[in-house]
C-alpha cells in the first residue's frame, strides 16, 4: 500500500458515518433532540413553505377571476385543466414554454459555470495564496452582489451597444469604428457575463468559507508523499470543498434561471426571452395560473439539480475538515503568478463593483442627468434644504426625514430577517447533515430550498393571501412588521440553509460525541460545540440574506405600510418622477449600508467565534 492511498484511507475513516445508523431506525429515536428538532422544523417549513407552494400548485387547476379574458368558458373558482393545456398543448406552447425554457437552461448553465470559475478562483486567491492585498480583495469581492445587476447590464450596453436599439453608439464602436455584432451586444452572451459577475459572490463566500476550514496539512502531506499538484487538487482539495461547490452551483443556477431584469434588458432587443419573462408578464397581466405553471417548471428543474447533487455528495460522501485536532494554514506561494492573480481579482472587482458604484455616485451629483462634466456638479440631491428649485422642492437625501426613516426600516428588516434565516438555516444544516440518507433529511433539505424558485412578487402575493386572516393558532399578520420579517426570512432561507448544510458537512461528529460522552446535554452541546464551530457558515448565510433583503422591493411591496416602507420603495418614486439623481443616490446609500452591515457582522462573528 502506497503512503498516498494510506492517507486516503485515513481520510475515509474521518468521514462522517457515526450519525447514519442513528437515523435509520427512526422510530426508536423518537425522543432524541435531533428528531424533535427535525419535527419542529418540518412543521415550521410546512406552514411557511409548503402551504405557499401548495397554493401555487392548486391555483393552476382553478379558473381565476381574470381568466374570463382568456376563455369564454372560464367560471372563476371552478376546476379546470385549461391552464395546463394552454402551456403544454396549444399553439402557444413553443412561445410560452419550450423556447424560453431552453434559453433559461442555457443561461443557467452558463452563469453557474462562469460564477464557479470566477468565485472559485477568487476564493482560492484570497484564502489560500500569498496574493498581495488579500484582505481588501476578500472584503470587496462580495460587493458586486450588493449592486443592482441591471446597472451592470446598462454598463454593458454603454460599452457594446450598436445601432440596433437606437440612441448613441456604444463606447466600443466610438473608439474602434467597428459595430459590435448583435450577439456581443444583446442576448445570451452578455446576459451570462453580467449575471455571473453579479452572482459569483455566492460561490466566493461558500468556497472561501470551505477552504478556510480545511486543514492544509492534508494537502501538504500529499505533496510530501510526492503527489503532483493536479492530483492533490483533484483528490484532496476538490472533494473537501465539493459541498460548497455544489451549493454554489445550485444557488447560481437557480437564481440565473429565475432572473428577470438582466436577461430581459439585454435579451429583448433581439427577442431572446427566458422563462421569467413569461412568468413576470403573466403575473403583471394577472394570469397567475399560467405564471404558476411556469414557476412549477422552474421548481422541477432545480429539484432535479438538487437531487443530482445530493446523489453526488451522497455517493462520494464528504470529508470532515473541522475536527477536534488543531490545524494551521500555510499559504501557497504564487511566485511570479502573484501579480497576474492580483490583476484578475482586481479587474473583476473593478468592473463589477467599483466602476458601477462610482457611476452611481457621479450620477447622483449631476445637475442635468447624463452630462458628465464638472460644471454640471451639484450636491443638491444630497444636501439641499427643502424648497430648492432644482429638486422641485424635495429636500436633499440626507436631510429628508422620510428617507432616514426608510433607511432605518431597511436596516431593521434586513438584520432581523437575516438573523431569523441564519438561525433556521443552521438548524436545518444540522438536522440535514446529522440525518443524511434518511427521508426526513432529504425532505427538509428539498423543502427549505423551494422559496428560492418562486418569483418575489408571487411569493409576496401568496403571503398576503395566506396571512391576511387568522390561520390556526397564527393571528392575522397582515400589516405587521413581523410579516415583513417572515416573508424576507423564508424567501431567502435557502441561502442560509445551503450555507448551513455545506458548513455542517465539514464539522466532525467526534466533537459533539466527545461532549456527549462527558455528559453534556443536547442544548449545551449545540450551544457550546456545534454552534461555535459553524458560526462562519452562519455569517455567510446572514450576509447573503442581509444583502438580498436590503435590495428587496417586489417581495414586500404588497405588505409594507407607510410606517414600514423601506428605502427601495422610495427609488420607485423618484424613478417615476424622472429624478435619476435621487434614485442613484438611494442606490449609493443602500450599497454603503450593505457593506457596513456585512463588515459589522463579520467583526461581531469573528469575536464570538473566537478563531
Amino acid at each position, binding site marked *: 500500500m502506497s503512503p498516498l492511498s494510506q492517507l486516503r484511507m485515513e481520510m475515509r475513516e474521518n468521514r462522517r458515518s457515526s450519525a447514519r445508523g442513528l437515523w435509520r431506525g427512526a422510530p426508536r429515536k423518537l425522543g432524541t433532540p435531533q428528531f424533535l428538532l427535525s419535527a419542529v422544523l418540518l412543521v415550521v417549513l410546512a406552514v411557511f413553505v409548503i402551504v405557499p407552494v401548495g397554493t401555487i400548485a392548486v391555483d393552476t387547476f382553478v379558473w381565476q377571476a381574470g381568466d374570463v379574458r382568456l376563455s369564454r368558458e372560464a367560471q372563476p373558482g371552478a376546476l379546470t385543466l385549461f391552464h395546463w393545456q394552454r402551456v403544454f398543448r396549444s399553439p402557444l406552447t413553443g412561445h410560452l414554454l419550450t423556447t424560453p425554457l431552453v434559453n433559461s437552461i442555457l443561461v443557467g448553465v452558463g452563469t453557474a459555470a462562469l460564477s464557479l470559475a470566477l468565485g472559485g478562483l477568487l476564493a482560492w486567491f484570497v484564502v489560500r495564496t500569498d496574493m498581495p492585498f488579500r484582505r481588501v480583495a476578500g472584503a470587496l469581492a462580495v460587493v458586486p452582489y450588493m449592486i443592482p445587476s441591471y446597472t451592470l447590464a446598462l454598463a454593458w450596453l454603454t460599452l457594446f451597444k450598436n445601432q440596433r436599439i437606437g440612441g448613441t453608439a456604444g463606447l466600443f464602436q466610438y473608439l474602434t469604428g467597428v459595430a459590435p455584432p448583435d450577439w456581443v451586444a444583446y442576448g445570451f452572451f452578455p446576459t451570462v457575463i453580467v449575471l455571473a459577475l453579479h452572482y459569483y459572490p455566492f460561490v466566493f463566500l461558500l468556497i472561501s468559507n470551505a477552504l478556510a476550514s480545511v486543514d492544509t496539512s492534508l494537502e501538504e502531506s500529499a505533496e510530501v508523499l510526492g503527489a503532483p499538484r493536479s492530483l492533490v487538487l483533484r483528490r484532496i482539495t476538490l472533494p473537501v470543498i465539493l459541498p460548497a461547490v455544489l451549493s454554489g452551483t445550485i444557488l447560481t443556477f437557480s437564481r440565473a434561471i429565475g432572473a428577470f431584469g438582466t436577461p430581459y434588458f439585454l435579451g429583448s432587443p433581439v427577442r431572446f426571452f427566458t422563462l421569467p419573462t413569461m412568468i413576470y408578464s403573466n403575473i403583471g397581466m394577472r*394570469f397567475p395560473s399560467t405564471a404558476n405553471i411556469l414557476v412549477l417548471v422552474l421548481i422541477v428543474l432545480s429539484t432535479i439539480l438538487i437531487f443530482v447533487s445530493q446523489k453526488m455528495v451522497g455517493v462520494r460522501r464528504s470529508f470532515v475538515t473541522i475536527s477536534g485536532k488543531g490545524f494551521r494554514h500555510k499559504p501557497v506561494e504564487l511566485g511570479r503568478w502573484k501579480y497576474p492573480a492580483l490583476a484578475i481579482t482586481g479587474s473583476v472587482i473593478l468592473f463589477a463593483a467599483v466602476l458601477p458604484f462610482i457611476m452611481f455616485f457621479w450620477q447622483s451629483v449631476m445637475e442635468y442627468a447624463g452630462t458628465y462634466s464638472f460644471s454640471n456638479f451639484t450636491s443638491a440631491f444630497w444636501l439641499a434644504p427643502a424648497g430648492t428649485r432644482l429638486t422641485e422642492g424635495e429636500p436633499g437625501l440626507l436631510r429628508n426625514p422620510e428617507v432616514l426613516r426608510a433607511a432605518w426600516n431597511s436596516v431593521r428588516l434586513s438584520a432581523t430577517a437575516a438573523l431569523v434565516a441564519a438561525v433556521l438555516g443552521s438548524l436545518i444544516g444540522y438536522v440535514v447533515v446529522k440525518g443524511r440518507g434518511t427521508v426526513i433529511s432529504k425532505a427538509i433539505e428539498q423543502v427549505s430550498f423551494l422559496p428560492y424558485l418562486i418569483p418575489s412578487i408571487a411569493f409576496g402575493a401568496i403571503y398576503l393571501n395566506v396571512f391576511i386572516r387568522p390561520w390556526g393558532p397564527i393571528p392575522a399578520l397582515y400589516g405587521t412588521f413581523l410579516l415583513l420579517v417572515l416573508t424576507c426570512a423564508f424567501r431567502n432561507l435557502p441561502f442560509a440553509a445551503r450555507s448551513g448544510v455545506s458548513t455542517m458537512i465539514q464539522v466532525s461528529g467526534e466533537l459533539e460525541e466527545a461532549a456527549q460522552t462527558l455528559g453534556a446535554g443536547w442544548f449545551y452541546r449545540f450551544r457550546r460545540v456545534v454552534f461555535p464551530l459553524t458560526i462562519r457558515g452562519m455569517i455567510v448565510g446572514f450576509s447573503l440574506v442581509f444583502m438580498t433583503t436590503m435590495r428587496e422591493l417586489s417581495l414586500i411591496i404588497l405588505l409594507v405600510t407607510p410606517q414600514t416602507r423601506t428605502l427601495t420603495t422610495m427609488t420607485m418614486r423618484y424613478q417615476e418622477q424622472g429624478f435619476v439623481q435621487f434614485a442613484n443616490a438611494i442606490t449609493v446609500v443602500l450599497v454603503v449600508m450593505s457593506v457596513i452591515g456585512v463588515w459589522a457582522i463579520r467583526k461581531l462573528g469573528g469575536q464570538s467565534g473566537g478563531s
Partner: protein
Amino acid sequence: MRVKRVGCMVLALLIGGLVIGLAEGQKIDEATRAWLQQVKVGPYQEATLYELALAEGEVTIYSYSSRVHNFAATFEARYPGIKVNAFDMDSGEILTKVLAEQRAGRFSADVIYLKDPAAVIAELYEPGYVFNYIPPDIKHLLPPHYREPLLVHHISLDVFIYNTEVYDSSPITNIWDVTRPEWRGKFLMPDPLVTTEYIEVLATIVQNADAMAAAYAEAFGEPLVLSPGVENAGYEWIKRMLGNGAVIVRSTDDVSNAVGAPGQVAPPVGLTAFSRLRDKEKNPQLAFDVAYGMGPVLGVEHQVVVAIVNRAPHPNAAKLLIQWMMGDDRGGWGYAPYHVFGNWPTRVDVPAPSGVPALAELAYWNTDADFVWDNYGKIVDFWTLNR
C-alpha cells in the same frame, strides 16, 4: 329645454359661489350658522364633510402614482387633523391587494387610484368591491364617459415620437409607415406584456380596424390584403409591425431615450407616453417630439380612475380626499401634481397645462374598457405568437 337647464345650472352655481363668497367675510349669528350647518348649505357643504372626516382622523389611499405623496401633503395642510396613509405601487399590485383584503374581510383601504380601468371595472367594481364617488359640485363639469361607471381623474396619451435633431418634421405621418422596409428595425415600443397599458393601446387599434384599413389604403394607395388567419386590419398592423423587426424594449423611457439621444445619424421612431416629453426639462440634450400629424390618429388615450373601497373605514375622509384630488377650476389643489405636460384633466372647466394643446384639438382614440377586457387574452396570445 337643454339650453334652459344649463342656464339654470349656471345660475345655481353663481348663487352657490356667491353664498360661499359671502360666507367668508360675513358676520352671521349662531342660529344661522347652526341652520347652515344642519342643511349643509354654503360654506358648510365642505366643512361638514371635513367635520365628519375629522372624526375619522385619517384616510388610506392606494395609488399607482408616487405623486400621491405630493397631494397628500397639501391635503394634510389644507385639512389639519386628517392624516393620509399613502401607499404607492403598481396598478396590478393594487388590484391584488384590494382583492385579498375584500375576500378576507380586512377592510383597510379607503381610496384606490390606478390605471387599467378595464380590470378595475370587471374585477373590483362589478363584484361590489369598490364604488364610484363623484364630488357633487363638479358632477356637471365631467363628460358622462369620464364619470361612469367610475370617475376618471385624468387621461394620458400614448403617441408616436421622432428625433428632432435629424428631422425637421416627423418622418412618419401614417401609422402604417412603421411597417415599411425603410423603418425595418427602426421602430421601438414598450413590451405590452411587461408595460401592460400597451395592451390597451393595441386593443384600441384593433377596435378601430376600419379606420386602420382606411389608413392603409391612404398610405399605400391600395386596399389592405389581410394575411391568412388574421381577423382585421388592427391585428394585421400588429403582425406586420412585429414582422418588420420592431424593437421591443422594457419601458417608455427606453423608447424616448433611444429616439431622442443626440448625435444619431439614422435615429429610430417610437411609440411611447406623451408625458416623456417632460424628461427634456431634466435632460435638455434629449431631442424628440410628438408626431402630431400622424394619421389616422396621433395616439391612444389611457385613463386613470379613482374610487371608494367597499366598507372603507374612513368614508368621509375618502370623499374629501377625492374632492381634493379633482382640484379646482385652474387645475390647482390636489390636482396640481397632475396639471403637467402629458396629462389632461377630465374636468371641462380646467384648461390644459401651459404649452400643451387642448385635448379637443388632438385626434386620438378613446379606450373602451369593455372592449379591452373582452379582447385582452386574444391580443396577448396574438402578440406572443407573432413576436
